[in-house]
């Protein structure tokens, strides 16, 4: 089984004037191909910081990060942009769709930056939208879609360039419980078809749908391989 994400002694220090925040204080973590993990922990424990580094949106202060075998912490900005485009899919809590574009055009966007030819772009974007169950909504603008539908468009956009890992930071945080279930069904199906998924959540119900829970505390990994069953107990206790 191949390693997709490998973090070694990752630290992230934020300095605001004299105050220094150790958002990550030495994180070692490995995620293998095909895994379905959730990251949990108290608010401010460093989960988002972690996700941003895994997603190459941010750089660690120190430590090494290998993504799909490539050491990415030393890459220049332009290479990182290419990595984000080719190897990573990111789903945000606030969807972040472009309001002037239709669902279809939003999903085509990563392929534009990848230089995919127009026809292939259109076909692949449609396929991705079919996978998330939105084939009826290709021409709708985000304002014409419900929250759940918007998040599905965002998932389609994240998977359309066939990333090695799909990252999601509280993807259901802005959704009601029924819609949350639908979104989790999609993540489940994607994982079942081979996609590696890492998701941040603070809801035990959400974490229980994954197969591995990583628990964060004060910028460090407290437990790196909890069973989703144990999470329920932790929360109860």
């Amino acid at each position: 089984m191949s390693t997709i994400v490998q973090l070694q002694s990752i630290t992230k220090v934020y300095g605001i004037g004299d105050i220094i925040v150790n958002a990550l204080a030495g994180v070692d973590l490995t995620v293998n191909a095909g895994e379905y993990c959730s990251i949990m922990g108290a608010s401010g424990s460093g989960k988002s910081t972690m996700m941003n580094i895994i997603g190459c949106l941010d750089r660690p202060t120190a430590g090494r990060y290998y993504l799909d075998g490539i050491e990415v912490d030393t890459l220049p900005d332009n290479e990182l942009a290419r990595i984000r485009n080719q190897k990573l899919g990111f789903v945000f809590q606030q969807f972040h769709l472009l309001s002037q574009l239709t669902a279809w055009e939003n999903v085509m966007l990563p392929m534009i930056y990848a230089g995919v030819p127009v026809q292939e772009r259109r076909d692949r974007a449609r396929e991705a939208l079919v996978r998330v169950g939105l084939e009826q909504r290709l021409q709708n603008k985000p304002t014409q879609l419900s929250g759940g539908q918007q998040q599905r468009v965002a998932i389609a956009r994240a998977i359309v360039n066939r990333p090695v890992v799909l990252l999601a930071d509280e993807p259901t945080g802005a959704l009601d419980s029924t819609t949350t279930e639908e979104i989790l069904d999609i993540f489940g199906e994607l994982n079942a078809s081979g996609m590696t998924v890492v998701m941040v959540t603070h809801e035990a119900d959400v974490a229980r749908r994954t197969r591995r829970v990583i628990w964060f505390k004060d910028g460090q990994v407290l437990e790196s391989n909890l069973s989703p069953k144990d999470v329920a107990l932790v929360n109860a206790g």
Partner: protein
Amino acid sequence: MDWLESGNMAVKTLTSNKLRTGLTMLGMIIGNASVIAMIGIGQGAQKLASEQFESLGPNVLFVTPGSPGARQRTTFLPRNLVWDDAKAIAAQVPSVASVAPQRQSQFSVTYGGKNRTTLVMGTTPEFLIVRDFDVAKGRFINNVDLERNTRVAILGSEVAEQFFEGKDPIGSKIRIRNTSFEVVGVLQAKGSFLGSNQDDAVYVPLTTTATLLTGRTSPFGLDLSFISVSAVNEASIPAAEFQITNLIRRRHKIITEDDFTVQTQKDILRIVGTITGGLTALLAAIAAVSLLVGGIGIMNIMLVSVSERTQEIGLRKAIGASEQDILMQFMIEAVMLSAAGGIIGTGVGIGGILLVAAFSPLQAVVSPVAITLAVTVSGTIGLVFGVFPARQAARLDPIVALRSA
């Protein structure tokens, strides 16, 4: 990402906020419209001036007092060109057909209760031929008038209209500088020449001017404001110019610098061209400033747009846009805004020229050079003023940008 994609994207963004796009372009539209219109009007004025000049008849030369240098040094012209010079030209220069000595002054002219300060031109019968005027009513100056210093006046059409309002002026008495003159003729309307209205004038015998109005002011004879000469034909203009120059030099015993100038139509056209060319340049400069202001407007709106769209920029970077991609996107937006503004402005400017041409004697001159220049300049302005906002956008940190909700 290629140019086509970037262009596509820019069009989507620009059309998704039409009001803002329109307002931003307005600066460029006004700038370009004024450049095109100003240059067009300036060139129209140039063309009008040269056409009016051609209406003089193609074979006219002017002899004016003062050297070319002196004419540029002072507005006070030495009085040294006399009637005898004109007579000598008529008698001795073979390539000359007709010669009209002219002595002009501004005088107060009155009729009934009306008073008007107007050009009073003392001249000879030849004036009609040389300057191609026609008599509408009555007669022009004749040789008896010259011989006897008669107090007769021939009115330009506008003076006749102002004083007599359609009534027949022939036989009426007008007063020029408090001297009574009898109106014996009215000239046909001729229109204005180089901005001076040729119909707003009163013509009297040259001799009468000298004795009653201006007085003899030169020891050499009856001095003149200038002499109009018509050459036998167009081909003989250079010969006429040469022969007249030689003749007057001899008569004035010139050793060093000429104290007179012979100007052909070409010379005057060149002077007119310099003046209207300067005017055109001035108008264009003023208009260029408004283009610059338009460019600053674009920069302003682009900066606002960058700060409003930080989330969009963050998202684009998160899904793989490089700094160059973002830079290009914003640059293309800026260039499109300004170039589209330029094209629309050019259209408005051409409309303005046509409008001015429809309601004034100016001709519509649409200069392709001006159009190319305006569109290129506005595109460049977009490029220049777009760089700063676009760089701001390109340098945004993706997570900071995404978090800016």
